[in-house]
């Protein structure tokens, strides 16, 4: 996966951190101090389809060949999260109880072209 640099235009992962103090949520979220949300941005040119986030296999290779020979299909390629991980939260609920949970698929770790 590629992390976005200043002049990058191809599909990459942009860092985005939500500071709970900054949005006034530090009174009910005990831990962590913020949320490393991150997101995917950038262009997916034809040769980038199904790369770099998706694992190469016989099937993806065949799919790429079909896509490469079909300009219309390749144009629909999108820059999307290919790897995500959970966000662990410790927070006060409306009744003053303390709840700990892992919310699945909240942090974008890697991006790739569909």
């Amino acid at each position: 996966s590629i992390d976005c640099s200043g002049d990058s235009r191809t599909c990459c992962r942009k860092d985005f951190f939500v500071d709970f103090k900054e949005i006034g949520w530090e009174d009910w979220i005990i831990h962590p101090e913020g949320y490393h949300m991150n997101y995917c941005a950038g262009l997916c040119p034809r040769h980038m389809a199904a790369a770099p986030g998706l694992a190469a296999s016989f099937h993806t290779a065949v799919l790429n060949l079909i896509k490469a020979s079909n300009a219309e299909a390749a144009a629909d390629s999108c820059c999307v999260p290919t790897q995500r991980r959970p966000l662990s939260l410790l927070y006060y609920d409306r009744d003053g109880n303390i709840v700990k949970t892992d919310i699945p698929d909240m942090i974008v770790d890697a991006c790739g072209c569909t």
Partner: protein
Amino acid sequence: AAKGTRCPACGLAALAPSAQRDVLLALAKQSILSKLGLPDRPNTTQPMPRAALLTALHRLRVQHMDTAEPPGAPRGGSSPRLRPGRGLQQYEILSFAESGSSTSRSVLLHFRFTRDLSGSIEILRATLYLFWAVPGPGTHPVTIRLLQPDSAGLNTTVTGESRLEVQKSGWTSLDVGQAVQQLFGHGSQRLTVELEVPEARGSPLLADHSGSRWPFVAAQARVRTPHRVRRR
């Protein structure tokens, strides 16, 4: 994206950087609240004392270490273990006691469970933690009753009863999983625990609930799985 349409993420790039930030912040807030099943951010008027919270978290960690199974060990017993399943969100809920009326013979403790999750989760395990401060030498018999209010809230039903002989000061844990499961099953959120001691023996429960020895219930829960319907 459907054929012929733009990628959903492309719209973000067209916005000015400040507007992009606002959109992302709104998305982050909405995403967290919806995944936690909260209609809005909770307003916490009286947060727990830090000491009480740290003690409860420490007790939970100790319990996890005690119940952890070695890899590959056969599953035993009837109590379900927390096993992370794919896509199944799991919760650990700490509910601290609110003191109710008390006499020389009995103490009432109220536990109010979360309203936000009551319909969507199933309780896997729940443990009541009490800290005993023994008033004198010898054993101190204590009867612990779990009371559940009816739907009108006028009468209570005894859902469980245990007798303990307290010999030394320290934490005691009691399995209240079934009572909490019933509570959630009936759509109720309040569990009352009555501690009864013989006349003139004094309560072994520490009177000071303001610090690190506050009674609490630790519940482990997971998102209720939808019933599978198979068509023949």
